[in-house]
């Protein structure tokens, strides 16, 4: 399972970098989306993959039995997903405005700031 996740995360990063390097600004945003997904899955994987063992303590016990899933990475990923949702929404609107105002989706044609 770990190897599958590792390949998946690596593939996502590769795809993200590929898209970020394209000239089309819409693909740029898609690249940012994939980059966020890759980072989230990386956290999820780095936190340890445990199946079917929720972190629940028995009534009266001070701590859950060893070997349970770690809830913290999942909480982190949840926060990161919410943040990336907002950020990607903003980026999508920005790209739409860029295409409207500049009349092109080619990043190489953006000239006024270089």
């Amino acid at each position, binding site marked *: 399972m770990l190897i599958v996740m590792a390949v998946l995360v690596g593939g996502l990063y590769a795809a993200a970098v590929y898209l*970020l390097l394209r000239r089309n*600004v819409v693909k*740029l945003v898609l690249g*940012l989306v994939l*980059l*966020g997904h*890759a*980072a*989230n899955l*990386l*956290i*999820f*994987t*780095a*936190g*340890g993959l445990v199946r079917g063992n929720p972190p629940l303590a028995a009534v009266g016990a001070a701590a859950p039995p060893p070997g349970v899933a*770690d809830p*913290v*990475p999942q909480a*982190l990923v949840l*926060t*990161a997903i919410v*943040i990336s949702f*907002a*950020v990607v929404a*903003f*980026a999508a609107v*920005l*790209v739409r*405005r*860029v295409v409207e*105002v*500049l009349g092109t989706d080619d*990043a190489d044609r*953006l*000239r*006024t*700031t*270089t």
Partner: protein
Amino acid sequence: MTDLLVVLPVMVPLASAALGAAAWRAPRAPRVVGVAGAAAGLAASLALAHRVVTVGPAATQAGGWPVPFGITLVADELSAVMVVVAALMGVAVAVYGLAEVDDARQRAGFFPLVHVLLAGVQGAFLTGDLFNLYVCFEVMLMASFVLLALGGERPQLEGALTYVTLNLLASALFLAGVGLVYGAAHTLNLADLSLRLPEVAAQSPALVAGIAGLFLAAFGIKAGVFPLYAWLPASYHTPPVAVAALFAGLLTKVGVYALIRVVPLLFGGVDGIYELLLWTAVATMLAGVVGAVAQFHLRRVLGFHIVSQIGYMVMGLGLLSSPHPAVRRMALAAAVFYIAHHIVVKTNLYLIGGVVRRLGGGEELKALGGLAVVAPWLAILFGVSAGSLAGIPPLSGFWAKLAIVRAGLEAAEWWAVAAALVAGLLTLVSMVKIWNEAFWKPAPGQVAATGPIPRAMAAPIVLLAGVTVAIGLLPQPLLALAERAAERVLDPAAYRAASGLLAGGGG
């Protein structure tokens, strides 16, 4: 009571943003809330700093969970300095924005956005938790994205696209680093990590070095160091001056702060990390200053100088490569002093640039001229700030540069010292260029008839120039505070004590 003091510098801007946003339909309310909230934020920051200086560091555990399980906010000397300076910039920019930012942008939420940005910045300075640092970065970035694009003019959109892409890339790298840190050490509390990460490093140094690389890249992009700075000069001249001044003062410095906070505490043991930072700093100083020489647009010149000045601060951090404790303390204290001085001066230069634009009708230096006659007081204030940036005694920049160069000499890093001196000289060249072109030479064409400069624009400039002069004439209190800050940053045990880790938690 301590709890409240530590939380207030973040809560006041958040509350001001909420109030301002709730009252956005009212004609004047957002303006009043914007300025009053910034002033209240400054008061809260000063109260916190007073407590830190007189009593010692303060910490609070959000939700009452003990360290390292809760979310820790720590105010040590470094945080105190940064929080006060940032709040001061908030006041200056809010007042300046009253007159400089147009009605459409004010109605679109300029003031609430400034406060959201301030909340993110102050949160980043106060948090004692790596993931929270990420969240604060994102809060700050989100506000800055909107502020940058607000108005939607063509250059703004192009600048915003570059800025958003590179900053999101940095955030993704940071997030990946946070995930790997958690995977390796099973905690994200900075104080706790300072204990656990060395254990991990003892077993697999390559893992920790790789994580350190991710953090260096992420913070490096945000701080604008060589070769990751290209987004900065491409975007900082596009928004209204008030926005650019706020960015110029605070955003890159949050990146530098994160480097200073995280590298010595967590990655000080990684081989060659300080040497890498030192040479990065040298390249940053030179690349920025050389870029500025080639520019003839006022705010582009200033933008390249931000990059160059970041190099000096990172050089202070890079000098930690020295094995001598006294030199290390001196170098880091110099970096802290440099940051505080630089935020004030750089923001003020942007604010002055806004007045120049209004008086001269543009920012192309070739088309400007004669402002020393039109506005002699502005010429004097520019001279003070520009001289301070270049390091002319007795202004604050002189002490900052002197401290860095002294530390470099003590550490026997001759090349870095030489680069710092050359960059200082070229800074002076750039500042003299602005002076000659905008103020001294006769106006090339008809001087546009301009009304008087609004007081709301003049007052913050006078205030910040006064602060520069005050630091220049009385550097000792700030230097002493910077030394104390450096001592704590360099001693993880002291930082752990400040976060309340050894005391068993509870704020």
